[in-house]
């Protein structure tokens, strides 16, 4: 039997020593509840498993040149990330509840928490949540806990996938959710200020937003704080290589998707939800937190701390029900950030912005193709308006070997001809040129 070391002889020896038979061990399961043999295929060996999975993998396309974004990006991942995160002392270990044998995990996560704070200009970060969407939801409930209010305002320029997740989670709860439609691709100040009052717990925005547009929320933070509410900003970590930080704008809670920090796209997961906040709110923050302390010999060590917030202690009064998080993904993120380093992260962000800018120039040079949000700054993603429905153009471009972008009609009204295109440091001048040629060809 695979992965079972004991031989039949050893099993019989053990049964004999404890004076039981195999049937005795399962006698407490009533006869009528005992299962018949499972109607699943017989087990297969390693070689056959490899071949079976390789065959399934081959039925997925990896040949398309990728310009898809929407919150999940095809970034360069240095080989050292997988080599280090693939060390089995990391990936076969459990949550570090026994700190003396888990200093590796604990210190690495402390470094990760520190990196997230430095990236976002915040003071306290947790050890990870599932993904950017559930992290945003947790930030929302955290703001509700802090302010003891029930109203949330969220702008439609926030990732629509996250918004629909939040709506699903809050369906049965006493939370009043207001959505504001974006104003020319930016968070709608007028609509937000109209709704903002002394019952608002938080305003939720994103930077760059789903359309790729860059904003500065300093004005929003001031207005939100004047009403005693909190500002929650969801952000794209690579963009923080060059963009003004949510912390410096006055954000109270910052969340985002950490997939772009060294995690493969992997068809939807595992991903990495990050969260950071101010020290004054740290006890209201969900998720595990690693802290520094001393051992009996006064040596520096790391432990899980502030556990009194968590489910295993607080149970129904916990800040969250989260138990398993995305620890190994957080490890990959700090390894990625350490390998890129201060300069490398900035250079990566520059490359993304420059290549996106180049792509924008090449594509808007095509007759009939225009920039949809003419006056907005963008980082590495932008919206183009095509002379034909974007969904059709994207399908045609797939046949030409490009995942050219995302048709916004799926999530936004009156944007049938709009396509969201993302460019990362992995895209070459040649690939961008070929996309432009292919698009021009289709639109003729």
């Amino acid at each position, binding site marked *: 039997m695979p992965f079972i070391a004991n031989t039949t002889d050893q099993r019989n020896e053990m049964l004999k020593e404890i004076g039981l038979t195999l049937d005795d061990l399962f006698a407490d399961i*009533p006869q009528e509840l005992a299962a018949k043999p499972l109607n699943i295929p017989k087990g297969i060996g390693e070689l056959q498993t490899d071949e079976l999975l390789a065959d399934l993998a081959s039925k997925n396309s990896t040949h398309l040149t990728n310009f898809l974004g929407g919150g999940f990006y095809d970034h360069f991942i240095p080989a050292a990330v997988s080599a280090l995160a*693939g060390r089995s002392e990391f990936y076969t270990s459990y949550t570090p509840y026994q700190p003396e044998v888990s200093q590796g995990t604990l210190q690495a996560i402390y470094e990760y928490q520190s990196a997230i704070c430095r990236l976002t200009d915040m003071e306290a970060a947790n050890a990870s949540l599932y993904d950017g969407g559930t992290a945003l939801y947790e930030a929302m409930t955290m703001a509700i806990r802090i302010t003891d209010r029930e109203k949330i305002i969220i702008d439609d320029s926030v990732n629509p996938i996250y918004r629909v997740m939040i709506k699903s989670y809050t369906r049965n709860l006493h939370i009043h959710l207001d959505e504001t439609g974006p104003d020319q691709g930016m968070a709608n100040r007028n609509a937000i200020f109209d709704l903002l009052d002394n019952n608002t717990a938080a305003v939720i925005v994103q930077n760059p937003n789903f359309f790729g547009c860059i904003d500065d929320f300093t004005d929003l933070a001031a207005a939100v704080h004047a009403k005693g509410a909190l500002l929650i900003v969801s952000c794209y970590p690579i963009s923080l290589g060059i963009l003004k930080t949510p912390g410096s704008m006055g954000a109270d809670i910052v969340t985002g998707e950490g997939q772009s920090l060294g995690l493969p796209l992997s068809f939807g997961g595992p991903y990495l939800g990050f969260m950071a906040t101010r020290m004054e709110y740290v006890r209201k923050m969900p998720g595990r937190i690693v802290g520094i302390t001393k051992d009996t010999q006064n040596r520096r060590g790391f432990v899980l701390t502030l556990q009194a917030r968590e489910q295993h202690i607080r149970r129904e*009064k916990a800040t969250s029900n*989260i138990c398993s998080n995305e620890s190994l993904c957080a490890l990959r993120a700090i390894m990625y950030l350490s390998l890129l380093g201060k300069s490398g992260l900035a250079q990566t962000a520059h490359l993304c912005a420059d290549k996106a800018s180049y792509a924008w120039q090449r594509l808007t040079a095509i007759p009939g193709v225009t920039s949809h949000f003419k006056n907005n700054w963008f980082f590495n993603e932008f919206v183009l308006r095509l002379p034909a429905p974007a969904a059709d153009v994207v399908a045609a471009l797939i046949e030409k070997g490009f995942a050219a972008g995302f048709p916004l009609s799926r999530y936004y009204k009156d944007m049938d001809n709009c396509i969201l295109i993302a460019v990362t440091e992995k895209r070459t001048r040649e690939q961008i040129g070929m996309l432009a040629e292919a698009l021009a060809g289709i639109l003729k």
Partner: protein
Amino acid sequence: MKLIFERSIPGRQGVTMPERDVPTSINIKPELLRPAPAAMPELSELDVVRHYTALSRRNFGVDTNFYPLGSCTMKYNPKVTEKVAAFDGFAQLHPLLPQLRLGGSLTQGALQLLYETDLLLREITAMDAFTLQPLAGAHGELTGIMIIAAYHYDKGNKKTTILIPDSAHGTNPASAAIAGYKVVPVPSDKTTGDITPETLKPFINDEVAGLMLTCPNTLGLFNPHIKDITDMIHSVDGLMYYDGANLNGILGKARPGDFGFDIVHVNLHKTFATPHGSGGPGAGPVGVKSHLAQYLPISLVVKRDDGTYALEYDRPKSIGYIAPFYGNFGIIVRAYAYMRMLGREGMPAACENAVLNANYIKEKLKPYYDLPFDLVCKHECTFSAGRQMKTGIRAIDIAKALIDRAFHPPTVYFPLTVKEAMMIEPTETESKETIDSFIDAMIEIAQLATTNPEVLHTAPISTPVSRLDETLAAKSPNIASLTQLADP
């Protein structure tokens, strides 16, 4: 050991950048840019590799030695599952692809894998439909409770409470509370360690939306009254929720759907051998009986008549979206490979070996440690350090002493219903020799508890750090190393 930031040397860089083959044209206005780059470390690739390699050597994994954490199922993570999850055809796949027209045809392998995993889980648990979206067990619990809420809402039932045994894992009441229910704890029977129809009866009323149960329970004991309990809950139109954390105790030998459960979650990172990753990622697929299938989250993989696979989004009664895409796909790939490797005979065999290993430990340690429930257990057994407390030795001391003997400790102080609890789950992948040496260590510690308890209080001494001051960490939290924050 230094922090990675403390090793920084200005000007160093680890990676070489991809080529700049376009003009530099940052045309973002300066007010939108950060004044200085983020203070990430500046190190060579070797610096980084040495740092994290050194950290890994301060860590203990299943690959290191015996890791008998009760309720965590720390079974061996097969290496082939790591290999296949890294295939480009899985790792490079953008999740938005199937949402493009013609995109479905580009992801047939992934969709087929999800579909087949769904079918395997249905058969293993005797449920009728699965969602693979929940990103962890607790996430599955929340999804399941949301389905319970949707069911009652649809029927016009006014239900306000969820019943949960006092021995339950903390995620159970936390999940129920987050979904908006009032949690009502049900006491365990003192002789069996589990809830019984007698202990449950006073709590049955029309407010009950459902009962969350782990079976085998958190003590490793199978509940022989399970069918009666199910009938009692169903009699008030409540739903039975199965927490699958302990599925390894009945895998292939019994199925929760046959006991009468309406909703189950399974933990792929426990029963199905995906790695624990130092705390995650996991995956917690949720299965339901057919009357609840309409409430499953969007989207689901379906197989069309022509044999192709597609995502179904049109689900009007669904609870909505609980994850951004299709689940923790990389974890599901590993679990699928494992399930195919075990197959029809491998699953009950795994269970039988897990249960034998746990009972073997139980019988061998019985003379030395208090056993609150002297019953045949399933995949884990629970002791109490009650006897050792007479000389001032507690479960935590026994745990730390095991560390000095190169073992990872068992789960301690859980479940809350046993004082000084030590829950031992060997799993089926451990050999008799390993288990025997663990038993020897436990016996030695029991003897030291009487002859020389002081030495146990100082354990561990063989690790890079000794016992840590958790009070200090909580009182004055230092949870990030920060540089000067940028001026707004």
